């Protein structure tokens, strides 16, 4: 059968569909997002974006309790949010198969930390499968549903960025429809009162022993003997680096990494002269292998970040690899807010009131970079609001303190923070950046923007009414492109002695299909003052004389720079006009 090029995330969606999954639910997060975006395209599966990963995990748990198969998707930090559900679902077990798809981000391409999902699996005592390419992503997801039902346990499929976003060839199968199991009330299994939980805990202990026995013979754990002078124990994408960097070494490729098959590891170690463990992120495998009494060859590979074939090869003395030095002195190119981004106007205005800004997670975190330099903290989803209150409690800041949080992030974890501010009598200011979408992860629907995962209309959350209901005394709506009006509201509300919510409402620039006519600089009027440069718009730069220049191909005509120019030097021009100065 012809094989198809698929990303790991596309293959996970395909595998879940082939496994007869009924429901997919999750919260977007790089590098996991495309799993649900692809699964929703298949017939016979319903998908939902949940407001956060905990809700998603609970929905999936309910589907399982109802007797159908469910997959719940998230990035590594999302599992922290869902962990409360996972740790007790491990005790209740499942009715329909329940699979957690969790994507780690070694190297932190798009993440605030580099945690290793296997730690949560060990803590919650659920099994983990680790694919190393797209074909395994498909087959492991199908296997995960089988194991979930066979061992009465949620199963984690752990991806990493290179497996999720890497593409490789996949052989696809057919869908096997799985009948929904009839619902039966089972209080001892599903109501985690202490007495019942203690009974279920025995089940968890017994299950772990059974899973270890399964792993010893499972095809997911594969021994490949080549030259036996060096034996490498590895998993996930690291296996590919080992095969390329150390093509002659024998390998024990572990697909089921929690729980580990101790006997298989001991047998492999006995048949090779030296044993080394090569894995990305935490030393999970290596600590367990050491605990078995197996002496490991130290390799000096980095403790964090991504590995590569070269790193692996060099760790074992393969010399004579081609070298090319990096060119020094190049300007960095960090990601930036798009031309026409409404966030730019809001952060420009916040700079005017010299606010201490506790930030949050989304595109707007990029406003922390120069020249806006508009953020004092960014930790985790929803942290902006609790932290603004906390900074206020510390009493050390004389300047205005504001929390800044996006619409989707507010729905995810911001509402409870605002509730606390109201409850605690805070007179603080929370700004919700409502750009009508979950922008950073690729414009997903969310409860605020009224778009469902399949693009259909959903109820739109009334942020103003919600903020008032939670306890905000003043709720103001501003257009962040209108700089003076935004600044006036910021001044009023940060000075007021009541809890305020400011909703900065304007759609993401990428949602606007028809750009307005661009602007250009009138060379005679420009005084080279640099005010427009301080917006940090990628369409605006200086020429050799220091005069401002607008790239009309990049400009989308948002008009923020018109408002900051005190010399009327920014003028509207036609779409493809070759502007040569003058009015």
């Amino acid at each position, binding site marked *: 059968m012809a094989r198809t*090029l698929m990303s790991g995330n596309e293959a996970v969606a395909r595998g879940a569909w082939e496994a007869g999954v009924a429901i997919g639910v999750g919260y977007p997060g790089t590098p996991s997002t495309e799993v649900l975006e692809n699964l929703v395209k298949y017939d016979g599966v319903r998908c939902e974006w949940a407001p956060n990963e905990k809700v998603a995990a609970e929905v999936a748990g309910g589907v399982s309790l109802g007797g159908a198969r469910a997959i719940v998707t998230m990035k590594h930090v999302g599992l922290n949010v869902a962990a409360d559900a996972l740790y007790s679902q491990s005790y209740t077990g499942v009715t329909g198969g329940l699979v957690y798809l969790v994507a780690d981000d070694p190297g932190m391409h*798009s993440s605030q930390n580099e945690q290793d999902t296997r730690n949560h699996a060990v803590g919650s005592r659920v099994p983990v499968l680790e694919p190393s390419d797209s074909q395994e992503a498909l087959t492991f997801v199908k296997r995960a549903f089988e194991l979930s039902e066979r061992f009465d346990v949620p199963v984690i499929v752990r991806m990493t960025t290179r497996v999720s*976003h890497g593409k490789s060839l996949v052989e696809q199968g057919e869908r096997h429809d799985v009948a929904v199991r009839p619902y039966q009330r089972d209080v001892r299994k599903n109501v985690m009162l202490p007495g019942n939980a203690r009974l279920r805990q025995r089940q968890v202990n017994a299950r772990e022993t059974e899973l270890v026995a399964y792993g010893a013979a499972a095809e997911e754990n594969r021994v490949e003997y080549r030259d036996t002078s060096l034996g490498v124990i590895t998993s996930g994408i690291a296996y590919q680096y080992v095969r390329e*960097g150390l093509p002659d070494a024998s390998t024990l490729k572990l697909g089921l990494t929690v729980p580990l098959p101790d006997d298989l590891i001991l047998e492999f170690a006995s048949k090779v002269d030296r044993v080394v463990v090569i894995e990305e992120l935490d030393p999970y495998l290596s600590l367990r292998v050491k605990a078995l009494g197996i002496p490991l060859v130290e390799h000096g590979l980095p403790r964090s970040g991504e590995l590569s074939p070269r790193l692996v090869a060099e760790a074992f003395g393969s010399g004579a690899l081609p070298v090319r030095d990096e060119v020094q002195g190049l300007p960095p190119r960090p990601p*930036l807010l*798009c031309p026409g981004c409404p966030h730019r106007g809001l952060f420009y205005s916040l700079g005017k009131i010299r606010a201490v800004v506790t930030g949050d997670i989304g595109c707007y975190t990029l406003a922390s970079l120069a020249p806006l330099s508009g953020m004092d903290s960014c930790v985790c989803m929803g942290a902006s609001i609790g932290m603004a209150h906390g900074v206020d409690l510390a009493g050390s800041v004389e300047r205005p303190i504001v929390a800044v949080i996006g619409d989707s992030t507010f729905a995810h974890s911001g509402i409870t923070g605002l509730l606390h501010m109201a409850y605690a009598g805070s007179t603080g200011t929370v700004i919700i950046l409502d750009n009508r979408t979950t922008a950073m992860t690729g414009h997903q629907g969310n409860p605020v923007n009224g778009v469902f995962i399949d693009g259909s209309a959903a109820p739109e959350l009334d942020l103003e009414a919600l903020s008032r209901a939670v306890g905000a005394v003043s709720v103001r709506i501003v257009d962040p492109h209108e700089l003076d009006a935004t600044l006036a509201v910021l001044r009023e509300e940060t000075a007021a002695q009541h809890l305020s919510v400011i909703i900065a409402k304007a759609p993401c620039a990428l949602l606007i299909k028809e750009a307005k006519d661009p602007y250009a600089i009138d060379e005679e009027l420009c005084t080279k003052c640099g005010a427009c440069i301080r917006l940090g718009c990628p369409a605006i730069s*200086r020429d050799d004389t220091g005069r401002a220049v607008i790239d009309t191909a990049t400009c989308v005509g948002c008009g923020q720079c018109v408002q900051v120019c005190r010399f009327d030097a920014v003028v509207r021009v036609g779409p493809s006009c070759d502007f040569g100065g003058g009015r």
Partner: protein
Amino acid sequence: MSITTVVLAGVGGQGTILAGDVLAKVAVAEGHDVKLSEVHGMAQRGGSVETFVRFGAQVFSPVVDQGVADHLIAFEMTEATRTLRYLRPGGTLVVNRRVMASLPVLIGDVPAPDGLEAALSSEGAIFLDAEALACEAGSPRSANIVLMGAASYGLPFDTTTWERVIGERVPPKTVEANLRAFHLGRDACAEGACVL
């Protein structure tokens, strides 16, 4: 059988992801094992982006290290210089003669790099003006396909395979313009290679 590695380097928004997808699908259509790696998410917001496409009898790693790539196709000159470390000695270097200033340069925090073209030229770069050729082809947004046309000159695939994959992969209304863009890029590279 050896593995061929192609690195595409550019700026988020330039269409490197679609270009890499076309190249990978062409390699699949010609019977190779293929792996592609790219990074989505935050980097796409105008940051530096890299795509790796590798093909051969059996490909293990989707990513490569310095000094390994057989072909570097750069969509912008700063990024060409930044990613030059991937290219093996004697590898093919195709560069779009365009400089896009990054934000630190735009706001005057960091000086604009100079001498990029000369430095790349001394590395044997084949230059082309992808945006101008894309306009000539009738679609300014097809500069990424112009560059795939240029890349195709040094890759062992049939033109008809490229044409078929491009036809399947780009929006239906833009197929003709993209096919013209592909051939303009391929011809430009042929001329550049002759000059060398």
